[in-house]
């Protein structure tokens, strides 16, 4: 018990009681925050898993198509075909607040609205496998972006949940028991002091009575 290093005074007692009230309230609030964050995190992480499986499957398929395309074309031709992309993707990012955790929200914009601009080459000298490969990659791209958003959100929430959990545990298992022990120690000490003062006064009264009137102590 840490009771030895506290001052057993009334002022200290009031201070500790206030602190305990704050700690208890903070503990309740943080616990609520942790529970809600956890609920949202689990939803998000399930979606993350689903998206990741889909994206990995999609990219795997696209990679297979690209391998086929490479097999049917010369390396130089392929390099020139993809050298100067026509399309350009840019992102807007907003921060969304989930239980005081900022998680990003992406919206993407392409430079040109034409979907066929992903084909940055003339069709005459490239194999048709390349078209298929590029198209399959373009199909999986929206999922990839959703995955990025979701996965980053999960990572940030995981960090915050860990922090909150540590705080809750520190309050629950260290701060609050210590404060309660200290409060108990001080109130016991104060009570003890009060009793000892009372007894001292009674003794003094007896002594004074004996001196003034020669009364004996009625108890002895």
């Amino acid at each position, binding site marked *: 018990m840490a009771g030895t290093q506290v001052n057993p005074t009334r002022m200290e007692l009031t201070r500790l009681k206030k602190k305990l009230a704050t700690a208890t309230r903070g503990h309740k609030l943080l616990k609520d925050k942790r529970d809600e964050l956890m609920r949202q995190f689990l939803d998000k992480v399930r979606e993350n898993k689903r998206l990741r499986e889909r994206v990995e499957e999609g990219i795997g398929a696209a990679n297979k198509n690209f391998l086929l395309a490479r097999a049917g074309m010369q390396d130089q031709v392929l390099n020139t075909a993809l050298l100067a992309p026509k399309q350009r993707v*840019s992102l807007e990012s907003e921060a969304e607040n989930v239980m005081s955790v900022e998680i990003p929200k992406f919206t993407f914009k392409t430079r040109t609205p034409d979907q066929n601009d*992903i084909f940055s080459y003339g069709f005459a000298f490239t194999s048709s496998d390349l078209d298929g490969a590029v198209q399959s*990659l373009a199909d999986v791209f929206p999922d990839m972006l959703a995955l990025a958003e979701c996965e980053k959100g999960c990572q940030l929430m995981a960090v915050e949940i860990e922090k909150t959990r540590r705080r809750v545990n520190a309050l629950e298992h260290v701060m609050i028991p210590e404060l309660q022990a200290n409060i108990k120690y001080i109130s016991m000490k104060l009570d003890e002091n009060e009793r000892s003062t009372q007894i001292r006064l009674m003794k003094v009264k007896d002594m004074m009575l004996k001196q003034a009137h020669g009364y004996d102590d009625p108890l002895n």
Partner: protein
Amino acid sequence: MYKIAVLGDRDSIYGFAALGLEVFPTASAEEGAKALRNLCEQDYAVIYITEAMAEELAPELERCRENLLPAVIPIPGVHGNTGMGIQMVKHSVEQAVGSDIIFNEK
């Protein structure tokens, strides 16, 4: 206005150039680390990185984890899926919950 980067060995990522993403082909881990650090300082919101490269740059990835941007996302490369991406999600779950409760369900 943010941009998207793709990092990894050339064979795995050249296709993304056609979509309008910026590709940064890197051959070795040191080159990759340098490129990643460089990209983190510029205005890239999402950095896709091949799983093979991500495995070698794990400490760098860990550093980017707590920042809002960029999001560094492992994707399978041309040599197949190493399971690194799913591993990262598992890591998040373990960090938050204390044990892996999502991927044991099956």
